[in-house]
């Protein structure tokens, strides 16, 4: 026998403390008597008033000393050396993907996985070590390598399934890497196999795959929303129609009722007949004009809840409010009034100070450049010398404009015949790209100085034939489209756990990811864009941007499963590579005795209780 923690034997000193307590005799039971006349004379003979007493043999003291001895020995973790090569290093991989929440195995596949994982950890030989990894959108180590079985079990207990599509490849590669080269390295995979078998080199590692798919009728019962989208109606672009695709995984014909909600208000529901393994598309028209978020929901419960709901966000454009600062420019005023979804406002330069430029989406300066530009997207036409962009002089008759062919500002724009009379001569700053030039001199610049999108025309429209060309309205549409305040989110619909790219507005001080009634994440904006992980549960979330302590914008985004692989709950056959010959030369094993000692101590405690109450 050996002691794994010999220092635990120091706890035997507690027996000396116990005896000390008995010697000190510090506790008396009060008892009233009629008179102490007779007892008072006895104390001299018995000498009980002395603080230190000769220890008397007490059954209670013996029982308590026995109890302490047992616990002290348990702390030292005595163990019998078995001599067998039993210790292993087990890496437990729990599949936390969406399909593991399926209830075809009661209470769920994931609960079954946890139960089996607990059995594996509980059955590990003494002295073994373990690691727990949750595999969902990516691998997450819940318990790093430890021999503390309670910690491993707690990690398993704390694991939660996600709605993310499964990809066990990275988790399995990590697990194999952790187990490789260790004595008796093992990987235990608890999964329903709803993923493509990864390319895995398992040499030197035994991989145990425990399939958890229930299959059967319950698994066959699943129906899923595999796609949802919304688009403007062809006849009226201010109205939208929704498109929903429903897939059946049943082996029998079935039907599904799909309800559509707009901003949490039920709009319509449709019943669809589904062939075995087939899918059907539904179109919902006449959506409310002000709807912003659509939710499609399958009304019947089935084996997997995560694919029964899906959301989409309507990219509804509000009219862009453009402030035109000019002494008068017929071309600009005319073109701005022609572009759809643009609402122009004109103000002369002398009244610029009285205007709250923050109330406009875009500012257009014509022939004037203030010393300090507003923190809004800006178009400068007929640029003048300013600290913002110094002008060295004028270039007269520079020749035809030549555009950068791949620049998005020049999409569908033909500048071949466009000429200008005069061109401001500037050196392109670091933030600017040259969109068009004439005789090698920049004519149109674009960029994002201090995070603010800016386009600069270095010539006067009225001394150019550009306003007379057919490309002018297209160019202005492209420019305003570029200057339009961008959405914070590049994609309003993502998969659970996917990368979420956020482009904050220049004035944003804080970004909040909110959902399920609480703030899930707070971020400080950095130069664009921010990348963060989307929530791993399906649902509707928002990204809020705060500026000057106030909420400047709130953009909803949806997290949808819409993954046919996860919704297909049929039992899968999956063969994971395993090196069954991998066994170590062996380290001596041991069997710990502390549980027996704890049980014995509990027995002694019960004995003490009985003894104490028997006297009372």
């Amino acid at each position, binding site marked *: 026998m050996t002691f794994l923690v010999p220092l635990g034997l120091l706890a035997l000193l507690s027996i000396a403390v116990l005896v000390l307590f008995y010697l000190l*005799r510090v*506790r*008396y*039971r*009060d*008892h*009233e*008597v*009629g*008179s*102490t*006349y*007779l*007892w*008072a*004379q*006895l*104390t001299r*003979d*018995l000498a*009980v*008033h002395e603080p230190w*007493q000769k220890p*008397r043999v*007490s*059954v*209670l003291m013996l029982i308590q000393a026995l109890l302490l001895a047992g616990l002290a020995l348990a702390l030292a973790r005595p163990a019998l050396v078995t001599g067998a090569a039993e210790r292993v290093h087990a890496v437990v991989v729990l599949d936390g993907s969406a399909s593991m929440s399926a209830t075809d195995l009661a209470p769920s596949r994931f609960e079954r996985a946890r139960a089996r994982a607990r059995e594996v950890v509980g059955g590990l030989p003494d002295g073994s070590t373990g690691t727990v990894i949750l595999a969902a959108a990516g691998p997450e180590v819940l318990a790093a390598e430890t021999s503390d079985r309670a910690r491993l079990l707690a990690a398993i207990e704390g694991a939660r399934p996600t709605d993310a599509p499964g990809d066990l490849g990275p988790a399995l590669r990590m697990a194999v890497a952790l187990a490789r080269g260790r004595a008796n390295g093992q990987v235990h995979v608890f999964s329903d196999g709803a993923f493509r078998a990864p390319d895995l080199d398992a040499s030197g590692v035994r991989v145990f795959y425990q399939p958890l798919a229930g299959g059967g009728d319950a698994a066959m019962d699943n129906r899923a929303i595999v796609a949802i989208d919304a688009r403007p109606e062809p006849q009226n672009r201010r109205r939208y129609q929704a498109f929903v695709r429903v897939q059946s995984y049943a082996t029998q014909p079935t039907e599904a009722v799909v309800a559509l909600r707009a901003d949490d208000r039920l709009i319509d529901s449709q019943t669809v007949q589904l062939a075995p393994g087939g899918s059907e598309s539904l179109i919902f028209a006449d959506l409310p004009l002000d709807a912003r978020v659509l939710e499609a929901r399958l009304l019947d419960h089935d084996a997997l809840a995560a694919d029964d709901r899906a959301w989409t966000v309507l990219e509804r454009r509000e009219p862009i409010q453009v402030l035109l600062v000019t002494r008068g420019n017929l071309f600009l005023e005319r073109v701005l009034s022609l572009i759809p979804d643009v609402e122009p406002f004109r103000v002369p330069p002398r009244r610029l100070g009285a205007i709250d430029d923050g109330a406009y989406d875009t500012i257009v300066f014509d022939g004037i450049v203030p010393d300090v530009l507003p923190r809004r997207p800006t178009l400068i036409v007929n640029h003048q010398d300013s600290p913002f962009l110094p002008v060295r002089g004028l270039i007269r008759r520079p020749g035809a404009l030549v555009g950068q062919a791949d620049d998005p500002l020049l999409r569908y724009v033909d500048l071949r015949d466009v000429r200008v009379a005069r061109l401001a001569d500037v050196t392109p700053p670091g933030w600017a790209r040259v969109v068009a030039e004439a005789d090698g001199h920049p004519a149109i610049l674009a960029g994002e100085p201090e995070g603010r999108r800016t386009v600069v025309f270095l010539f006067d429209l009225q001394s150019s034939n550009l306003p007379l060309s057919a490309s002018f309205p297209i160019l202005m549409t492209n420019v305003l489209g570029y200057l339009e305040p961008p959405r914070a989110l590049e994609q309003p619909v993502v998969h659970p756990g996917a990368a979420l790219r956020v482009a904050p507005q220049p004035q944003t001080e804080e970004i909040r990811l909110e959902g399920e009634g609480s703030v899930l994440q707070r971020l400080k904006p950095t130069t664009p864009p921010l990348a963060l992980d989307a929530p791993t549960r399906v649902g509707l979330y928002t990204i809020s941007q705060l500026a000057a302590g106030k909420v400047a914008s709130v953009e909803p985004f949806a997290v949808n499963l819409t993954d046919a692989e996860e919704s297909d709950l049929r039992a899968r056959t999956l063969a994971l590579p395993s090196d069954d010959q991998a066994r170590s030369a062996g380290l001596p094993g041991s069997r710990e005795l502390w549980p027996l000692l704890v049980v014995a101590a509990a027995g002694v405690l019960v004995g003490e209780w009985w003894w104490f109450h028997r*006297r*009372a």
Partner: protein
Amino acid sequence: MSEGTPLLAAELMHRLERLQLISRARAAGLSHGERRSRQHGASTQFADYREYAFGDDPRLVDWNVYGRSGHLFVKLFEDEALLAVHLLVDVSRSMDWGEPNKLDAARRLAAALGYVALARFDRLYVAPLDEDVGPTLGPLWGRDQAAKLLEGLAGWRARRATDLGRALGGYAGSTGRRPGLAIVISDFLSPTWEDGLRALLRRRHELAVVHLLCPEEVRPGGPGALWAGPGEELRLIDRETGRHVEIHLDAPALDAYARRFAEWAGAIERFCAHHGAAYCRVDSDATLETTCFETFRHRRVLA
């Protein structure tokens, strides 16, 4: 004792009427001449009849009455009938303790002894004792006074500590009461008990001592008493003074207590024997019938 419980049951009172207190003075049959000479103004004037009892002078039997009724009656003359009986009962806080309560037991004993005295036309005085002697009840005479006796006993409350020397000395020293049979009912848990008894003897009282204790005082190691188990640490708190004594209660301690108890109780008994006083040790759990008809009779207190 619960309120409303009579000190003496009617049936017991009836049986007590057959008893009388034993007094050496009564047994000696003092001559009228001697009484007259000691108690000026007393006469041999006939007072009453009572049934003959053991110890009565056969010369006082009224044979005429015997001839008419067939029962023995003795004639009572005023100076003979009025044997003074002094019931002195300890009502200190130490008496108001124990299971059964010693004060309750003392009240019942006093009621029984007092009723016997009243039934026998003795002149009865009853006084409570604690640090000093309390208000004396009496003299009472005749069965008609029994209600007054019982009412007086029931009204006693234990409020103070014991000082038997001072209390009995105070009673003995008070004037206006004839010496007679002094019955002291107490636990005698007072260092001055001997002084008190000596004071009564000096006043020529004939003495009877009823040593009343509760079972826990006699056997602290007995069931339901102090003894909870071996090796227990106890802080004994004096009910009278609040002072405490810390003891390690084990078998040797109990043996030591038993020795001390025997020595103390033996000292009281030896004192009584030496001075011709009756001594009765009574436990508070003893029934009144047992005490009156066995213990008191055996110890020659009642006949």
